[in-house]
């Protein structure tokens, strides 16, 4: 039975349609795997009753012969998505006990497609973090370990619970969200695939907001084909999100031909960072060779403002967060502090937010408040938005030169040990997003594909960045890279 959880979405879809397995059997296998994996702390709210109910409904639908691809597929949902009647607290103490009266559009799209929710997945608080260590639930743990070393490693962040759950075969796939790399970095740290689509592809409605101009949802899966299948089910135009685009959603899976002959792949020179480990450089070179062998043309390109992406991000994201998180005031939902005699409403706000927000969230809200405050708005916030325009133009220029996709490393290192960054200053942790954050600032689609193991036996990922709205083409290039890389390693089970 345990092998059922190792299925891909595509494999399970075919087995379900042939009648070789039922959704209920798949679901039960996942629920047992989840119960046996508490040491990973990936699932933080389990929903077995909902899962069984949806699995039975999916089985009926499959029997009736008109089931979409995701029908009967057991998935995990990141805690950032509001799910009706189920705890949705963005891994924050301030939303403790919050049970939304509504369902996010993305998770509703999955429900409508017949997908089976197994539970809610761990993450960094409000998606602010790169190691899962800011979670109010305590961190999720990476199922991967260094060879001959049982140090617990981070699954990355913020979608660390999603990445850990998919890598450990607790579910067939999971939802993630990505504001600066929160899908792609954890995917790279766990040997899984994660795609952040073009800004506007997935509705943000019902997804707890961090930085609204950067946030996008996307799937985290075991391979590229699954990413195509699940992304298609998640995307839609949604009148409830004014930035959701009214374009038809293409058949992403049909785009996977594996043929990339004649495609032009750009290699940005600015992504050669000082002090980058040789293993990452080597992986990048191998990736280039693999795409060239598959018939792509490799060209050197320049994205001159790359260096300024992280500092611009750390103005824009906290600024938007300080505004978005103003709603957590102890009045309408979640936590309210116990008040002292004579405390008024200001004390209630201040105590509630001090108790409810963790250190990193407080830090970002306050940095955001500062850069938006009178006298600094132009110097910080407006300047960052101008630099953002230049970063986007860098990409537009290379796409105009005929570049179809851009190949970069996904992360500057493999997964690091939990607690290893404890004493580092916050900026050091922010450097994890150095290769991914440009993509959010420019609103582009980006995908992380596992491409090899480092000398410690840990997975490493490569990132491909595509043209806006051309996820199908991007997925196809990723598919060619995946085939050439032939990454099949799995973490040895210790949990």
């Amino acid at each position: 039975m345990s092998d059922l959880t190792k299925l891909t979405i595509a494999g399970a879809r075919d087995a379900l349609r042939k009648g070789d397995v039922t959704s209920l059997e798949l679901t039960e296998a996942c629920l047992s795997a989840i119960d046996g994996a508490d040491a990973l702390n990936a699932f933080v709210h389990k929903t077995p009753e909902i899962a069984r109910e949806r699995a039975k409904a999916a089985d009926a639908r499959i029997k009736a012969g008109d089931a979409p691809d995701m029908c009967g597929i057991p998935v995990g949902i990141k805690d950032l998505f509001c799910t009706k009647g189920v705890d949705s607290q963005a891994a924050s103490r301030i939303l403790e006990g919050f049970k939304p009266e509504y369902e996010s559009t993305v998770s509703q799209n999955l429900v409508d497609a017949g997908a089976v929710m197994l539970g809610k997945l761990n993450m960094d608080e409000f998606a602010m973090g790169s190691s899962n260590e800011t979670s109010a639930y305590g961190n999720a743990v990476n199922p991967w370990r260094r060879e001959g070393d049982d140090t617990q490693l981070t699954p990355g962040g913020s979608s660390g619970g999603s990445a850990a759950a998919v890598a450990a075969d607790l579910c067939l796939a999971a939802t993630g969200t990505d504001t600066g790399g929160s899908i792609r970095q954890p995917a790279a740290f766990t040997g899984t695939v994660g795609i952040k689509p073009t800004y506007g592809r997935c509705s943000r409605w019902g997804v707890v907001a961090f930085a609204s101009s950067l946030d996008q949802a996307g799937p985290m899966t075991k391979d590229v084909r699954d990413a195509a299948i699940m992304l298609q089910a998640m995307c839609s135009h949604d009148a409830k999100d004014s930035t959701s685009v009214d374009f038809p959603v293409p058949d992403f899976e049909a785009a996977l031909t594996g043929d990339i002959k004649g495609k032009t792949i750009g290699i940005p020179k600015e992504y050669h960072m000082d002090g980058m480990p040789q293993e990452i450089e080597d992986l990048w070179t191998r990736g280039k060779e693999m795409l060239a062998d598959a018939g792509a043309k490799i060209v050197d390109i320049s994205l001159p403002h790359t260096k300024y992406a992280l500092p611009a991000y750390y103005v824009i994201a906290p600024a938007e967060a300080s505004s978005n998180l103003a709603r957590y005031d102890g009045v309408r939902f979640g936590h309210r502090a116990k008040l002292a005699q004579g405390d008024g409403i200001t004390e209630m706000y201040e105590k509630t937010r001090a108790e409810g927000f963790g250190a990193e969230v407080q830090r970002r809200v306050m940095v955001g408040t500062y850069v938006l405050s009178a006298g600094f708005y132009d110097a910080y916030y407006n300047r960052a938005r101008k630099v953002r325009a230049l970063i986007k133009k860098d990409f537009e220029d290379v796409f105009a030169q005929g570049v179809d996709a851009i190949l970069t490393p996904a992360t500057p290192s493999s997964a690091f040990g939990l607690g290893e960054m404890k004493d580092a200053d916050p900026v050091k942790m922010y450097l994890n997003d150095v290769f991914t954050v440009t993509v959010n600032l420019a609103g582009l689609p980006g995908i992380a594909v596992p491409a090899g193991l480092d000398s410690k036996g840990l997975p490493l990922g490569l990132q491909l960045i595509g043209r806006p709205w051309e996820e199908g083409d991007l997925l196809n290039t990723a598919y060619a890279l995946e085939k050439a890389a032939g990454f099949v390693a799995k973490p040895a089970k210790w949990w």
Partner: protein
Amino acid sequence: MSIDEGTAAKVAKLARIKVEDDALPALAEEFNTILGFIEQLNEVDVDGVEPMTSVTPMKLKRREDVVTDGDQQDKVLANAPDAREGFFAVPKVVE
């Protein structure tokens, strides 16, 4: 640009987050580290560049100005820490 404890306290107040006095020096130091990192943006020539307002060039959709939902007071109040008689209850707002 260097942030002192007084500025840190002011920012905490604006953000409505209670920070104890003894935590202010460390907070000011963190702000300075982050702002020091952000200062790099001053190296960029942004003359004549418009600040980005929308990452995807598109017109926001409009809809009829009509009521599309409502009449769900119980749901609106369901998650409130303190709801009474159909309202959110809060401590005193004015002296």
